[in-house]
């Protein structure tokens, strides 16, 4: 009788364990798939879907399938907040990997802090992880790191007096503020500071003023979208030969297509995924980058971008943390994230810690230059 009971009990436990093992790992996401930030959210969504499919085909994580839920927040912070609430309360996800833009991310931060759920953001600004928030992590380099990478390159070329020209958007203004803050640390002096409006179509006035600023040696354009392309065309039209730097916001082939021949010689900081073939063979990231590029372009027939890379990193980091924690217990996953070191991702090599929730240093950002109409890594 006791033996029968033991058999029944173990059978029950086995059934319960098997049933538990079938419980999927729920990963939630809200991305700007449409709207003004669609160039961010669209490759991010495609990347998440592609790699969740691949992971599930290989048996899932911890023997469990991954169930991905993606909502389109269209770049709207209000919508992002509503969808995040839905992911946490209705869909009961274990981890959130999302937030294409800084605005959307910051709107969701109070929610995840209160709910106690790990959140890996795919947005740029440094305020997301500074000051460090317990449950919030992020994958891309911050705009401050982009500024620092640019200044390091400028200093190496002997360019110490520079002019800034930036747009009116949130990213533009944030990057400009960060650059102004860290310039002195790198021995860079800002001798001119011009700006243009969101829909402006002619920046020759601002560039003419910059050209006559005393001692100016280089120009940095903080912006993304069509503004930088117009700045670049105007720059060449005015015949300005000083080095021109752009931000990582235009690190794509689209920019070269828009600016045309005027883009020759432009430099910017970007993750190496922009042109992985041009990396030296011993580079630790090269294998991961080439694999991602091949798989993404093969499936979606569109150029790979740094933004899709942020989503890849977010997903793989979440999966790695779940594996290390051995479960989807939120606190366990969170601590596991903080313990990740030496993780080779698309954006760089991640080294998280309790005080560093972005885990990247400036070395993941390479300096690219446009040569013969293509991005080439120069440092």
């Amino acid at each position, binding site marked *: 009788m006791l033996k029968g009971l033991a058999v029944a009990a173990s059978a029950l436990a086995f059934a319960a364990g098997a049933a538990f093992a079938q419980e999927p790992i729920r990963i939630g996401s809200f991305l700007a798939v*449409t709207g003004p930030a*669609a*160039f961010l959210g669209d490759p991010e969504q495609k990347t998440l879907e592609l790699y969740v499919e691949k992971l599930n085909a290989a048996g899932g994580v911890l023997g469990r399938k991954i169930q991905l839920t993606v909502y389109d927040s269209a770049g709207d912070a209000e919508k992002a907040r509503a969808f995040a609430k839905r992911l946490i309360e209705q869909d009961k996800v274990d981890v959130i990997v999302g937030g294409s833009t800084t605005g959307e991310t910051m709107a969701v931060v109070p929610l995840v802090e209160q709910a106690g759920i790990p959140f890996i953001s795919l947005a740029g600004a440094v305020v997301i992880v500074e000051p460090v928030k317990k449950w919030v992590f992020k994958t891309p380099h911050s705009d401050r790191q982009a500024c620092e990478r640019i200044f390091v390159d400028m200093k190496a070329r002997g360019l110490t007096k520079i002019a800034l020209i930036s747009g*009116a958007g949130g990213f533009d203004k944030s990057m400009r503020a960060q650059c102004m803050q860290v310039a002195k640390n790198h021995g860079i002096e800002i001798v001119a500071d*011009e*700006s*243009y*409006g969101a*829909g*402006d*179509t*002619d*920046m*020759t*006035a*601002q560039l*003419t*003023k910059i050209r*006559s600023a005393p001692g100016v040696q280089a120009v940095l354009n903080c912006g993304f*979208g*069509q503004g930088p*392309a*117009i700045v670049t*065309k105007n720059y*060449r*039209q*005015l*015949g300005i030969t000083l080095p021109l730097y752009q931000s990582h916001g235009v690190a794509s082939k*689209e920019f070269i*297509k*828009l600016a*045309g*021949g*005027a883009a020759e010689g432009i430099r910017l900081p970007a993750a190496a995924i922009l042109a992985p073939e041009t990396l030296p063979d011993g580079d630790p990231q090269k294998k991961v980058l080439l694999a991602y590029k091949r798989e993404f372009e093969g499936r979606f027939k569109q150029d790979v971008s740094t933004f899709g890379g942020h989503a890849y990193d977010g997903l793989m980091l979440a999966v790695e943390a779940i594996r290390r924690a051995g479960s989807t217990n939120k606190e366990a996953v969170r601590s596991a994230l903080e313990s990740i070191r030496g993780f080779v991702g698309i954006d760089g090599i991640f080294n998280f810690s309790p005080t560093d929730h972005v885990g990247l240093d400036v070395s993941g950002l390479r300096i690219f230059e446009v040569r013969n109409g293509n991005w080439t890594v120069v440092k």
Partner: protein
Amino acid sequence: MSAEFLQFLLAGLTAGAIYALVALGFTIIYNASHVINFAQGEFVMIGGMATVSLAAAGLPLPAAIAAAVLAAAAVGLALEKFAVEPARGAPVVTLIIITIGASILLRGLATLVWDKKIHALKPFSGDAPIRIGGATLAPQSLWVLGVTLVIVLVLAWFFNRTLLGKALLATSHNRLAAQLVGINVRRVLLVSFGLSAALGAIAGILTAPITFTSWDVGIMLGLKGFAAAILGGLGSGPGAIVGGLALGIVEAMGAGYVSSAYKDAIAFVVLLAVLFFLPGGLLGRGGAERV
């Protein structure tokens, strides 16, 4: 100093010519019907986007341009036939709101027919900058200024020497009298919409190599063109041109000499100041209603 001034002036004239073409579109429709067509900016967008997609599909540039202008004119005719004409008896405010709705519809259709990306058109004759007395000009700017001049002359001939043009003018002066002398006022309205749409499309095509085009360029260009039309005096053709050029130059000078961040604000403040002292605009007559 004067090389800088010349640079700002050239930039202002180029932008001003585009505003002038858009403003002419507003004026022609306003003259024929007292309706302010807020979908005017969308015609500019359609011209640019259609040319980009037709050229990408393999059509030689001149054919793509011609097809795009015709397409925009067709949209203008459709707008008049299906949105404005059925509401003919309604108050003018209603008609204006209808055109606002049409502009939103056209923008939405544009994202379906094309996409939300920004597109560039190849400059018509290369982009090697031309030096003029210390300032530089993109060759495309010469196209903009040249074609605008030609269009202004053609329109002057059209309105003063052809029967159809005189009919449009007559309708703008007094609709009832025009009807009484046998002018088909409905056809006049149709032609004015088609003509305005074509003008807007040409503006969009001329400026696409310089300023790029996308599904939402119509919003700001329509607004600035409208402001230019008001500045020059709504209802006055020469006023539209003067207003457009003036707005473009004020913008460029404001960005150059005052502050680049407040460029748009400066232009609109100037507009307000002019209207305080000259309510009819620079070249307009004050409107008078017969009681």
